[in-house]
C-alpha cells in the first residue's frame, strides 16, 4: 500500500502594526516579486494592512512593527505574545521605540502631549513610546527605518523553514566600504555610520549624504570615539547628542550616559 505523504501544514504567520508609519509592513506589501510567493508559502492569518478577515489564533511567527504608545497597544502586544511561538520586532519603532521615543525619560511627554492635543481624555491612555521588548520577550530583532526588503524576506524564509535567522551585526561603515564610497568622516563631515546598524546598504553615504542613524544604535559602536571625532570637527556636544538621539529611541541612552550627563551639566 502506498503510504500517503503527510502534508506539512504551512506555518501560521501574523503581521501586526502598533504605533509607527507602517513602513515596515509596507516593505512587505511592496515586495512585488515575492508577495504572491509569501502568501503561498505561509498561512497568513493576520495582515490587516493587506487583507480583510484576520483570524486571531495560535501563530508560529508574529512580526510586530511600531512602538507601544497606548495602554490598549500594551494589552494587544501581550495577547500577540501569548499566541505566538516566535515574536520578531521589526523596524526602528519596535526595536528602539522610534523617533517618537527620542525624548524618552526626560519628563517632557505629558507637557508635549498637552501642547498638541490640549486637555482631553482619550478612550485609551497614551504612553510615551516603548520598544516592544519593554513589554514582552522578543525572540529576534530586525532593525530598519524601514526594514530592508532582502533582510525581511531572508528572515521570513528562514523562520518559515524552521531555521534561526542569520545575525547581521555590522555598522553602516561595513556596507559603505563595500560600495567603495569616500568616507565622509575622513573628509571631516558629520556621519553616524560607525555607530549605526547596517542593512540599508549605506544608502545615504552612497548619495553623498551623511548617515543620520535611522536604523538605531549598533551595540558594538564606539560612541565615545564618534563623539570625540565629531567634536574635533567643531560640532558641539549638544549638537552631537541631539542628532544621535533622533533615531536612537530608548536604547541609545545606555550608550551615551556620560555625554548626556555632561550636556545636562
Amino acid at each position, binding site marked *: 500500500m502506498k503510504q500517503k505523504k503527510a502534508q506539512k501544514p504551512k506555518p501560521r504567520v501574523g503581521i501586526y502594526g502598533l504605533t509607527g508609519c507602517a513602513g515596515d509592513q509596507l516593505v512587505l506589501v511592496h515586495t512585488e516579486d515575492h508577495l504572491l510567493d509569501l502568501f503561498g508559502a505561509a498561512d497568513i492569518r493576520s495582515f490587516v494592512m*493587506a487583507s480583510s478577515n484576520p483570524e486571531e489564533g495560535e501563530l508560529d511567527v508574529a512580526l510586530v512593527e511600531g512602538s507601544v504608545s497606548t495602554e490598549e497597544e500594551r494589552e494587544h502586544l501581550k495577547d500577540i505574545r501569548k499566541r505566538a511561538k516566535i515574536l520578531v520586532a521589526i523596524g526602528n519603532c519596535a526595536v528602539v521605540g522610534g523617533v517618537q521615543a527620542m525624548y524618552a525619560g526626560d519628563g517632557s511627554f505629558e507637557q508635549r502631549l498637552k501642547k498638541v492635543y490640549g486637555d482631553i481624555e482619550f478612550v485609551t491612555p497614551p504612553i510615551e513610546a516603548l520598544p516592544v521588548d519593554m513589554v514582552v520577550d522578543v525572540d529576534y530583532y530586525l532593525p530598519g527605518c524601514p526594514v530592508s526588503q532582502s533582510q525581511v524576506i531572508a528572515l521570513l524564509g528562514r523562520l518559515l523553514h524552521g531555521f534561526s535567522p542569520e545575525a547581521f551585526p555590522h555598522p553602516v561603515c561595513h556596507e559603505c566600504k563595500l560600495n567603495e564610497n569616500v568616507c565622509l568622516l575622513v573628509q571631516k563631515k558629520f556621519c553616524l555610520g560607525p555607530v549605526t546598524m547596517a542593512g540599508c546598504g549605506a544608502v545615504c553615504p552612497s548619495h553623498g549624504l551623511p548617515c543620520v542613524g535611522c536604523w538605531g544604535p549598533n551595540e558594538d559602536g564606539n560612541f565615545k570615539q564618534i563623539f570625540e571625532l565629531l567634536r574635533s570637527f567643531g560640532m558641539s556636544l549638544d549638537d552631537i547628542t541631539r542628532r544621535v538621539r533622533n533615531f536612537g529611541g530608548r536604547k541609545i541612552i545606555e550608550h551615551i550616559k556620560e555625554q548626556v550627563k555632561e550636556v545636562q551639566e
Partner: protein
Amino acid sequence: MSKLTEIRVEPLARVEGNGGILVTIEKDKVTDVQVRILEGPRLFETLVVGKTPEEDLNIVPRICAICNLSHKYAALRALEKAVGVQIPQVTQEYRQLMHHGEMIESHSLHLYFLALPDFFGYDNAVQMAGEFGEVVTNALKLKKFGNRVMRMMGGRMIHGENPVLGGFGRLPDRNTLLDVRREAEELLPFVVRTIDIMADLEIPDHMERETQFLCCKPPHNGYDYYGDVLMISDGSEHPIEEYQSVIHEHVVSHSFAKRSRYNEEPFTVGAIARVLLLGDRLEGRAREAYDKLVNERWHRNPLYNNHAQAIEMLFSLEDMIRTIDRILEMEPQDIAKPTRQSGTGTGGVEAPRGTLIHHYKIENGVTVEADIITPTAMFLDDVEAFIWKGSETLLARNDLDDIELNLEMIARAFDPCISCSAHLVTVVFK
C-alpha cells in the same frame, strides 16, 4: 428593533481593538458615528523643536511610509521659504518626477489592492488574482514602477534622504530617465483599460450627501499637485499662509488623528477634490478619462475617489513623460543654499490622499515652531458624516445584510493614510 444596537466595523486602525468604525443605532435611529483612530500619538510637531531644518527633513517623513515623499516635499517647500532657498527650475522638475512616482505608488496600492477587492467580493488582491490575474499582475507592475521612481528620486523606496534643502544628493543619469520614460509609456494602456473597469462598476448611492472640497491651486494653468493657494468648492481662494483661519482643527477623544472643519462643516480632500476642482485643466488621455468618468454624482459620493485616482494615475504617467522630456533639455544645477537663518514658511502639496500642509518657524537656524495638518486629519469628519448618512439610508431601506462592508467601503474610498489612520478588516456585530 427597539433595543440599542451597535455596529462595529473593526479593526479600522490595522489591529483588532485598536480602532474601528463604531455606529450606534437606537430605536432604528443612528445616534452616533465614530471613526476611531487609536494608534498612539507621536507628537511630531514637538519632536522637531530645537532641530535644524536638515534634521526636520529627516524626521517628519516618518509620519507616513506610503506618502513619505509628500511629507518631505511639503516640508521642503515650507523650510525653503523660511530660510530663503530659491530652487532652480530643474530641481522643481525633479521634484515633480518624484511626486508622480509617489502618486502612482500610492494610488495603485490603494485602488487595485485595497479598494477593488471589495467591489469584486474578495478579501485581498491575492485572492482576486484567480479571476483577475492579468489586472493583478499589471497592477503589481504599475506599483513597482511607482516604487522605482520613488527610489530613484528619494534614494530608497521608503524614507529616502536624497531630497535635501535646495536640491538632491544625487540625480539619475540620462539613460535611467529614458528607461523610466519608456516604462511609463508601456504602462499607459493598462491604466487606460483601468478607466474602462472603473466605468463599469456599479456605485451604490446610500451615503450620498452634499459636501465641500478643498485642494492646492497649482501656480500655472495646468493640473498639478502643489501650490501656494488653497482652493475651495465654494469658489473662494486663500493664500496658504492663512491656512489656520481656513481650516479649523479640533480634537476628539476617540481619535489620536485630529479633525478639521471649513466654515464649521466637514470637507473632502484627495483625488476626488482635485479632479472636481481642477479636472477641466486636464489634457490628453487623462482628459478623455475625465470626460468618460466624471458625472454630477461625484459631488455627493466619495466612492468616486477611486475613479479619480485612476484618472490621476493617467495624468501622472503622461506628465512624467513630459517632465522627463523637459529635464533632458536642461542642465543640472548645484544645490541652492539658504540666504537667511531665521524666518517662517508654510508649504502645501497634494499628497495622494489630499492636501498636506507643513508650517515651520526657524530662528537662528533652529526650529522653534512646527505645525502639520495631514489629509486624513482633514477628511475624517467627512468620513463620519458620509457613514452616518449611509447608515441611515441602509436602515431606512432595511438593507442590512452587508451594512458593515458598505460602511467600510466609504471609509476605504477616502484612502485614509494607513499610518495616520486606517485600514479596515473584520466585521463584528454586537
